[in-house]
Each structure stands twice: as C-alpha cells, then as structure tokens.
C-alpha cells in the first residue's frame, strides 16, 4: 500500500481529465458514476492506508521523480505521509465522497453536469497533492490548484454577472496572500537552501535561534498566505461572496477542506513557527479577532449560506487560535470535526435550498421541521456540534482549544474569555438559524423532500458530527507533546456551560419569544450596530473605497492611454501638415510650374542678396 499512495490523487485527476475531454458524450448517469466512484476509490484506498498506518505507525516517503533541477534547487514530485497527512486525506476523500454523492442529486438538472464533476474531481486531486506534498513547492502547486478550482466553481453559474464577480473576488483576494506566501518560500529557500519540509525544519533549528528575525519574517509571510486561503482578517471578504457557487461546493471547498489549507500549512511547518513566537502570537490574535468579528456578523445575516459562511470564518478563527497558542493537535482536531459538522450544515442548507425553489432568506422559510425531517435532524445535530454542546464532536475540539489557550501565560486568560464570548455568539446564531428555519409557521412550502442520494450523506455526516469527538487523531508523533497540565476545574465548567446559555438565549428570543429584543433592535444604536454587523463591519465597504474604486478610477484614466497621447500628438501634427501639403498636389501642371518659378525667383533673390555681402 505504501508504494501506491500516488494512486490516491491520480484517480480523481484522471476522472477529471476524462470528464473534461469526453463529458459531452457521456450520459448523465455515467458522469455521476465516474465522478463519485473516482473519489470513492480514493477514499477506499485512504481507508486501507489508514488501517495499515494504525498497525505500524510508519511514516511513508515516496519520491516519484525530480520535478526540475536548477542550480542545486531540485524539488521532487514526492509525497510525505504521516499522521497529519492521514487526517487531512481522510477528511478530503471521506467528506469529499459524501459531498460528491450529494451533488449527483443536487446538480441533476444542471446542463453542465460533466463540467461540475470535472472541476470537483480536479479539486480533490489538487487538495490531495497539497496535503501529501513533501516539499513546499509541490504544496504550493496544490495550493494554487485548489485556488483555481475554487474560482471555477464559485463562478460555475457564470451566466449571472454577480457570480463571475464573486469568483474573481475570491481568486484575487486569495492571490494577495499567495504572493506573500511565495515570498516566504523564496526567503526560506535562499536562507536554508531547500524547500523539503522535513529537511528544512531540521536545518532551521540548527541555524536559527528562537525569536530570530528571519524565521519570524518567513513565518509571517507564510501566515499571510494562510490568512488569504483560510479567510481570516483582513483577507476574509471573499468567502461570504464565494457562496455564489453551488451549495455542495460551498460544503466541500469553502467549509470542509480548502479553507482549512491555511491551518494545515501552519501545522505542517510548526517546526518553523516554534522558532518565531511573535508569529505565533500574531496567529492567535488574528484567529480570535476574526472569530469574534465573524460571529457578530453571523448574528445579523438573513441569507442561510452567508450565516454558514461567517460561521466558517469564525470556526477557522478558532483553529488559528489553537495554532497560535501551540495547541497543534487541538487545532487539527477542530479542523476535522469542523469538516464534519460544517459539511453537514452546508449540505442541509443545500437540501433546503434545493427543495424550496432556491430560497436563501431564512425569514421566508419556517416550519420545515415536519416537512423535511432528515434535514431538520441534520441541522439540529450540526448546529449542536457547531455550538459545541456537550458530547457532540465540536464540543471536544473546541473545549481543548479553549483550555489550552487559557494556559498560555500573560494573554491566555484574555484569549480564553474572548473565545468564550465567541462560543456564546456561535450558540446564539446557530440556534437562531434552527429556530427560524425549522420552527414557527411555514412561509414557503417545499415541493419535495430529499432523495436517498441526499439523505445518505446527511445521515453519515450526522453520525460523524455526533461521534467525531471520540476519534483519536494519530498526530502525537507529528507535534510536540503538550505538558499535560490542566487548568482549574471551574475553567472547564464555565467552558461547558457557556454554549448552553447561548442556546437558551436563542430559544428565549427566537422560539418562545419570552425575551423581547424588538425595543433593543429598533433603538437608534441597536439599528446602527445591526446594520454595521450586517454589512460585515463595513470591511467590504472600506476595501471598496480604499482599493476597488481607486483602481477602477486609475483603469478608467489609463483606458484613454495618456502616455500614448504624446505619440498621438506627433501623428496629428504630421497629418495636419500632410493635409496642407496635399492641397498643393493638385495635378495641375501649370500650377506646379508657376510655384516652381516663384520658388526659383525666391531662391535667386535670397542667393543674390546673400552674395552681395560675400563678394
């Protein structure tokens, strides 16, 4: 098995290429089978690999060929496989398979069915390359590959202008981070002479002191890349707009896998980050700030997918917090559980949107509890896990993060408090969603319930979201062990009770109506604040004024080619002279003659006058 891990990314890639080339000639059923089966086989192979890894705990390094060799720089197409890779691969292929299956029903009526699966398979292949790469350059290849697939899938329904706009925004904003990351790679290579991750980390530990300048700069540049990809402040604005894509895409790319690539990158290069405490603190602060900002924003949204998008940003903020405080395995654990419950929520919202004639506004839904029972239970379980209610998967991972954050000296308790506030908000907005959509009176009637291809992935993900917390992720060999100390018991009790309080608040406001907030909301301050949160803290507005508008202005100025105007002037002068002179060329011989004579007389007169002085 260890010799054939290259098959795992290859199979989805081959399927993608086949669909691109022959998609138009295949029947709908064939396309579906090909698209789903390729990821299914990859998932099966990953499972076999996992079983083998559980037995022998063997790290696999597989070098296929040398990509290029220039002046001592020889990155290979080579894979590195350890516990962290295994977790990521399982999430990508496992959740990916379920989402592919879900898509076959969701996209059934779409005319571009083959194109959809071609992109989705290519995404899985690129993401697998990203997590399996043993050097940063190959990782970067996968990183850009998933970026392209994200762009293609966000703009999948390109007939609408807004979707194309969202796709371009997603691509360009992440590209800002990617450029910084590329600079980081260049810096690391020039300093250490290799991009091979394991060698590089070892070399870095020999060369640099903890807290030295160069590793700090390099790590901060890598963080910029991670921030762009994982939609953290200040580059998070693309993710809510990316919801323009089909909902299963949002589940796979913009919730479960691609947006967590930044978390994976930092976890993978944690050996470098341990040398740069400043960068780690920056990661923690970015994480917690983003988490709170997004949680407040999610409170006010009315579009079901935007709520989930902001909650994704918020949850990735928790993962960043975990990485920043050195709780590596807790961060990866939360990545995994988040993939389960957020994919579940997104697929659930996809089912609602599918059955409710593409309705996105939660206040136009309502009363769906009895009409769509499978979806209702998916949402209940997913929201419980998202809110980190006890015994759900989200509880175990988020609890670990908060407790480890508390133990950090100096800023630890502050981070913990902020994290608790975030958890409270998470519970409120996720159960606001549940109460508004599934309880109360019905505003829109669903025209159908979900078919089995939607129900099966939802049920499996429900199960995973419930029991995911008991999984033991095999990363103890990868990350340095924590000291194992625990904070006081009251800290733990508070952490557990806060989400329950949040659910209770949501219940009182949005279900029983016993807590009336109408007065608060309609007051001037409340309205302003609500508007502010609804607009995502005005960040989009701010970027629009600061970057987009001036850029458009500049483009408009340059459209008339001001530099070329100089050359245009030369042309214009020549043309004017040409115009004047061409009048003289009348073709009348006598006129020519007369002007010749006149010219001759002039020349002779001048010459004679001049020669008077000379002679």
């Amino acid at each position: 098995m260890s010799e054939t891990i290259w098959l795992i990314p290859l199979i989805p890639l081959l399927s993608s290429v086949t669909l691109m080339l022959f998609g138009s000639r295949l029947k709908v059923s064939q396309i579906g089978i090909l698209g789903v089966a390729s990821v299914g086989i990859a998932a099966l192979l990953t499972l076999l690999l996992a079983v083998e890894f559980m037995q022998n705990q063997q790290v696999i390094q597989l070098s296929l060929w040398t990509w290029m060799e220039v002046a001592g720089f020889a990155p290979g197409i080579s894979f590195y496989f350890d516990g962290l890779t295994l977790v990521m691969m399982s999430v990508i292929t496992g959740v990916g398979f379920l989402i592919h299956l879900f898509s076959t029903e969701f996209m059934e009526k779409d005319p571009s069915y083959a194109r959809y699966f071609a992109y989705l398979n290519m995404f899985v292949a690129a993401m697998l390359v990203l997590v399996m790469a043993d050097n940063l350059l190959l990782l970067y290849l996968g990183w850009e590959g998933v970026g392209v697939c994200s762009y293609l899938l966000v703009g999948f329904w390109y007939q609408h202008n807004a979707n194309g706009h969202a796709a371009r925004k997603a691509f360009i904003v992440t590209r800002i981070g990617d450029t910084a990351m590329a600079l980081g790679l260049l810096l690391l290579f020039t300093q250490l002479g290799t991009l091979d991750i394991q060698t590089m980390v070892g070399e870095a530990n020999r060369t640099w002191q903890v807290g030295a300048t160069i590793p700090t700069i390099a790590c901060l540049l890598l963080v910029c890349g991670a921030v762009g990809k994982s939609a953290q402040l200040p580059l998070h604005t693309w993710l809510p707009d990316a919801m323009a894509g089909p909902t299963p895409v949002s589940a796979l790319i913009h919730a479960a896998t691609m947006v967590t690539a930044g978390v994976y990158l930092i976890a993978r290069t944690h050996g470098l980050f341990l040398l740069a405490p400043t960068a780690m603190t920056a990661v923690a602060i970015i994480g917690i700030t983003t988490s709170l900002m997004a949680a407040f924003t999610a409170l006010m949204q009315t579009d079901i997918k935007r709520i989930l998008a902001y909650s994704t940003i918020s949850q990735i903020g928790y993962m960043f917090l975990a990485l920043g405080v050195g709780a590596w395995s807790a961060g990866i654990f939360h990545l995994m559980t988040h993939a389960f419950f957020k994919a579940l929520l997104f697929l659930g919202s996809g089912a609602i949107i599918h059955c409710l004639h593409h309705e996105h506004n939660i206040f136009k839904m309502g009363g769906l509890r009895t009409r769509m029972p499978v979806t209702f239970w998916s949402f209940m379980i997913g929201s419980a896990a998202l809110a980190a209610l006890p015994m759900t998967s989200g509880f175990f991972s988020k609890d670990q993060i908060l407790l480890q954050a508390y133990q950090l000296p100096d800023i630890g308790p502050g981070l913990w408090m902020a994290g608790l506030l975030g958890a409270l908000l998470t519970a409120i907005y996720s159960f606001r969603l549940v109460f508004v959509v599934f309880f109360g009176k019905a505003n829109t009637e669903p025209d159908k319930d979900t078919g089995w291809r939607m129900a099966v992935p939802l049920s499996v993900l429900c199960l995973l979201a419930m029991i995911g917390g008991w999984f033991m992720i095999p990363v103890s060999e990868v990350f340095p062990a924590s000291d194992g100390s625990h904070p006081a018991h009251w800290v733990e009790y508070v952490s557990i009770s806060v989400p329950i309080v949040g659910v209770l608040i949501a219940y009182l406001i949005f279900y029983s109506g016993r807590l009336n907030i109408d007065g608060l909301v309609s007051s001037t301050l409340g309205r302003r604040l609500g508007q502010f949160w609804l607009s995502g803290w005005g960040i989009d507005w701010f970027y629009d004024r600061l970057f987009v508008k001036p850029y458009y202005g500049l483009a408009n100025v340059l459209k008339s080619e001001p530099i070329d105007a100089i050359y245009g002037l030369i042309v214009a002068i020549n043309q004017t002279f040409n115009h004047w002179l061409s009048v003289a060329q009348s073709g009348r011989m006598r006129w020519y003659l007369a002007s010749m004579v006149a010219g001759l007389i002039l020349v002779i007169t001048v010459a004679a006058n001049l020669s008077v002085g000379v002679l």
Partner: protein
Amino acid sequence: MDGLNIPLNHILLVSSLLFSIGMLGLMIRRNIIFILMSLEVMLNAAALAFVAAGAHWGQPDGQIVFMLILTVAAAEVAVGLGLVLQVQKRFKTLDMDHANRMQG
C-alpha cells in the same frame, strides 16, 4: 576677328527675354502643343546664351553644348509629340488643366 560686334550683354538680354517669354508661355498656355513650343523657345534661349558666351571667351565649349541642346530638343520633341497623341486619344482634348488626374 572683324565683323558685327555685338556686346555680350545685349545677347544675354535677348536670351533672357526669350527665356522669360518661353516660361510665361509655359505658365499661361493650356494647350499642350503651345506648351511644347514654349519649351522649345526656352531651350533655344539657353542655347543662345551658351553660343554667345563661347564666342565671348573664344572657347569651343559653347558650341559643343549647343549641339547637345539641339539633340536633346529633337529627342524631347519626338517624345513630347508622342505624348500629345496619347493625351488627345485619352482625354479627347489638349487642354492640360483637364488632364490633372493620374490613371487617365
């Protein structure tokens, strides 16, 4: 050398008078045959000046150039009359102001 002794200046005056008449004819005449005739007058004016100058300095060069001009004039008339025929054929007129376009 005895005989009629006309001062050089006088001859040159006649020559330039002839030249001016020719040039004026060239400019104001529209008929191509008259234009050719004016051209002949101008050539002969130049030839006269050459002969006069040669006689004045006692050099044979003036007369040699005169022979040259005579030949050139003959050739020119041959070509010119050919052109006149063509112009008449194409434009059905000998008025040069009507023949002011290329390609006929």
